[in-house]
């Protein structure tokens, strides 16, 4: 046996493959791949497309359930939401492009995730964006560009942006995280799956012409950013939201047509990935002629056409003989469409250029990159939290004002108002609270949607941090009156070739799996973004959980703000000594230390069941999840959002615990509830039945925020720092 043919290191670097991977390709192919083939394998074997590094762990995630119609592996996950409706949703990262070119990076991130949902035959009804940047003011350019890009794209396409997160931490200064989630609705019987079925059926490329933009984008996303990253700006694509709007509406009209067998988004790795994945899902092959692909530029080679990541393109599998009918439909929307190939049954992806063979590869080889196992080593233990050394809390009011003015906790209004969150006339609970609620038109049903993640908790303990993210997302939905159905996850980590990062990846996945099993919430889609690292500085492990819940009757939705003067305010769930990883420690004491809050998933579930039962019984007026900033910040939010003050007795810790931990600790599994006076006894009975602690805190109303003898602030006093936190 002869040694594998030598290959220039530079050529391998260009396609981001290793020598080992190249040797495997030669071995499995029985020959050396040509340049086009090598490029195609390079993008599909990139971490971004193949999940080769994370795949060994992802199998642990529970993905089944009676209501799951589509788990991971498709363009988006799908759950049955009753009444003949299904909900398709997915989250995806656009971190690297957004670091280089914030506006277009974020805009095309939204465009891409919309197409993933459209490909399932679903109409997008909500966008959420989970954003993380370095501290202000240095990160202002990233923040402004990303927010403008999301708004610029989402507003134009006419899909409301209803939620997300915004967080600032030093570790994201060079590597901001931009994760976009889209939620769509489709009639169960119109659900599409992107398999290239039926030999001889046609492959129709629809939408934008293909240009040289974004070549190697997927490979680029699988490398660290370094000084030369600016030179990769051409690998960032430019969005055209109006074209996407036309594509969206045209596809929606076709969903009911039996001439259309499948729809596939062209995202990372462009045509190569779209055709290979479609063929793989149906166990088929495909033959395409790149000379038939409408071009934006002259002189493009087969290599460039196959690897282009030009935006706003879809691949549609059309029943043979019905091409004209489908094409004339697209023409009505002024969309270009071209038959570029057909489904074959030889299991190969064959690329020709006007009849001349350019590539011929087994589909399996393309879509099944070898799993890559890396060494793992636990990350260094975080700094211990020496509570005894912290000074006592002497002015809770001053600390509260400081926390309300923290960019991590202050008002999101300056961002939210730049997104059209009302278009579509379905937004029943707007962004800014725990979860947004979107009604399903023509029914009594509604969806609650949220995203959650905590890099700080995960830095301190990746497994528990990931569990806390799942629990908080679920709590957000329950606070809005919904039952959690399923989640999509976006795992953002640094360079996995560092053993600590690989260990973090393993821990994060394990944490999500544990929480999902305990709370019975399956993972139906997801995305992994590695190499969020620049010159040795990586992001903290940041799993972002996007979760969807159902309200059978939207009249049962629960707002977060207080609702009426004189309503009783109660705390459901117990408070532990959980200062570790808190925003209080960071803002007031400059510490990121300790262990993240203790989480008992059984107790978490019990509290959810209690709140849902109380809501079903019509006992609640509002519910708000306790999160970063703890009890006092949550109380203040309910006041600020409603314009109703609060008055209650001073809060005193029991059993030698600390006051700061009671007021600002971030113990999970807690809700702030408000109700009319007559509901209190019934709530108390119900809480005992569910074994959930319930404490009466005080009354909503007036224009002061007061804990008697402990703190007294006027609402305008609080509003100043809160509304100005992002400026």
């Amino acid at each position, binding site marked *: 046996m002869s040694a594998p043919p030598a290959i220039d290191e530079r050529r391998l670097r260009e396609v981001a493959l290793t020598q080992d991977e190249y040797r495997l390709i030669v071995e499995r192919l029985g020959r050396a791949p040509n340049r086009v083939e090598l490029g195609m394998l390079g993008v599909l074997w990139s971490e971004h497309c193949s999940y080769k590094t994370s795949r060994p762990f992802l199998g642990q995630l529970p993905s089944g359930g009676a209501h799951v119609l589509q788990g991971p592996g498709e363009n988006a996950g799908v759950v049955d939401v009753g009444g003949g409706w299904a909900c398709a949703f997915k989250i995806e990262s656009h971190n690297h492009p957004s670091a280089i070119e914030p506006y277009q990076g974020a805009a095309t991130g939204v465009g891409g995730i919309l197409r993933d949902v459209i490909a399932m035959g679903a109409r997008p009804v909500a966008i959420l964006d989970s954003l993380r940047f370095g501290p202000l003011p240095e990160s202002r350019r990233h923040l402004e560009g990303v927010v403008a890009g999301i708004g610029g794209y989402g*507003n*134009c396409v006419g899909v409301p942006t209803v939620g997300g997160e915004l967080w600032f931490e030093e570790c994201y200064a060079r590597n901001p995280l931009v994760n976009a989630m889209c939620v769509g609705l489709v009639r169960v019987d119109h659900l599409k799956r992107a398999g290239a079925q039926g030999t001889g059926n046609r492959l129709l490329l629809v939408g934008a012409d293909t240009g040289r933009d974004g070549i190697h984008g997927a490979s680029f996303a699988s490398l660290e950013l370094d000084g030369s990253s600016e030179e990769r700006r051409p690998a960032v694509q430019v969005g*055209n*939201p109006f*074209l996407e709007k036309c594509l969206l509406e045209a596809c929606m009209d076709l969903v009911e047509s039996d001439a259309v067998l499948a729809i596939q988004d062209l995202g990372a790795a462009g045509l190569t990935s779209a055709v290979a994945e479609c063929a793989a899902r149906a166990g088929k092959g495909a033959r395409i002629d790149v000379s038939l692909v409408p071009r934006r530029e002259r002189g493009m080679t087969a290599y460039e056409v196959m690897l282009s990541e030009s935006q706003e393109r879809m691949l549609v599998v059309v029943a043979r003989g019905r091409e004209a009918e489908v094409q004339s439909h697209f023409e009505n929307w002024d969309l270009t469409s071209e038959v570029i190939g057909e489904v074959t049954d030889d299991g190969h992806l064959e690329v020709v250029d006007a009849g001349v063979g350019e590539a011929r590869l087994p589909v399996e080889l393309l879509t099944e990159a070898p799993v890559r196992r890396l060494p793992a080593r636990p990350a260094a233990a975080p700094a211990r939290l020496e509570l005894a050394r912290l000074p006592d809390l002497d002015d809770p009011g001053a600390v509260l004002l400081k926390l309300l003015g923290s960019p991590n906790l202050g008002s999101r209004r300056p961002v939210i108002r730049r997104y059209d*969150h*009302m*278009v579509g006339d379905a*937004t029943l609970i707007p962004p800014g609270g725990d979860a947004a609620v979107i009604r399903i038109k023509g029914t009594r049903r509604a969806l609650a949607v949220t995203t959650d993640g905590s890099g700080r908790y995960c830095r301190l303990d990746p497994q528990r941090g990931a569990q806390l993210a799942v629990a908080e997302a679920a709590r957000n939905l329950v606070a809005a009156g919904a039952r959690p159905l399923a989640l999509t996850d976006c795992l953002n980590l640094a360079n996995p070739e560092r053993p600590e990062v690989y260990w973090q990846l393993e821990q994060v996945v394990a944490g999500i799996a544990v929480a999902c099993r305990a709370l019975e919430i399956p993972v139906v889609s997801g995305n992994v973004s590695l190499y969020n690292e620049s010159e040795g500085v990586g992001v903290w492990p940041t799993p972002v959980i996007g979760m969807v819940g159902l309200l059978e009757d*939207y009249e049962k939705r629960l707002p977060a703000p207080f609702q009426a003067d004189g309503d009783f305010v109660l705390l459901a769930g117990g408070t532990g000594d959980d200062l570790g990883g808190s925003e209080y420690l960071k803002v007031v004491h400059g510490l990121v230390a300790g262990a993240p809050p203790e989480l008992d998933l059984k107790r978490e579930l019990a509290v959810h069941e209690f709140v849902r039962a109380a809501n079903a019984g019509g006992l609640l007026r509002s519910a708000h999840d306790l999160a970063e900033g703890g009890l006092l910040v949550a109380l203040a939010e309910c006041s600020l959002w409603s314009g109703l003050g609060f008055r209650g007795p001073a809060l005193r810790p029991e059993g030698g615990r600390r006051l700061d931990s009671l007021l600002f600790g971030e113990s999970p599994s807690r809700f702030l509830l408000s109700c009319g006076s007559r509901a209190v006894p019934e709530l108390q009975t119900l809480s005992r039945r569910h074994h959930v602690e319930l404490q009466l805190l005080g009354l909503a109303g007036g224009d002061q925020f007061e804990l008697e003898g402990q703190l007294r602030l006027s609402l305008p006093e609080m509003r100043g720092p809160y509304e100005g936190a992002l400026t």
Partner: protein
Amino acid sequence: MVDQVLEQELRYLWHKDRSLKGSDCVILPGGFSYGDYLRTGAIARFSPIMEQVYDFAERGGLVWGICNGFQVLCEAGLLPGALLRNSTLEFRCQWTHLVVERADLAFTGLCQRSELLRIPISHGEGSYFADPATLSRLEQNGQVVFRYSDPDGRVTAEANPNGSLHNVAGIVNRRGNVLGMMPHPERCAEAELGGTDGLKLFRSVVESAMRVLTA
């Protein structure tokens, strides 16, 4: 909204259509026609259907432009002035208060003069502009229909969300049959969506059409 909430017959008109299909009122809704890449409404006004809209307006038919529709009507010359980029240079999606200055129109017949409406805006280019002569003509003729105000009905600079001259939120043509407004009444026609003030305008149109039919 028009069909489900108002329970009126709704006909979608495609931009390439050349007939209004017997409509009693033509609504140019919000959206981003042609992506607003050039200038808001600048391309949409050349749509084939617009010729019918001109004729219809000329004959006294009710034409109602909301948000991007208002921008199209200005570009088309059916309404005076223009809508510039918001003075904040940012998109704004938020609730606003409007003072009704004309309650005698087909669009506002169910409102009272000086009544306060709470209706959301959602736009990046909603800053109403007209040259001084046009503006004073609009004011003299009473063509300003809605003005942004604070929750107490005071027309102040702070209550102006986009830098519109004279806090203009909506105007009507001289004849009173072509209305343009930046706020979105269709977004607040059901209590679930946070308010029903917008429904008043839609009901006014229906009522006025009924009067025409029974007259």
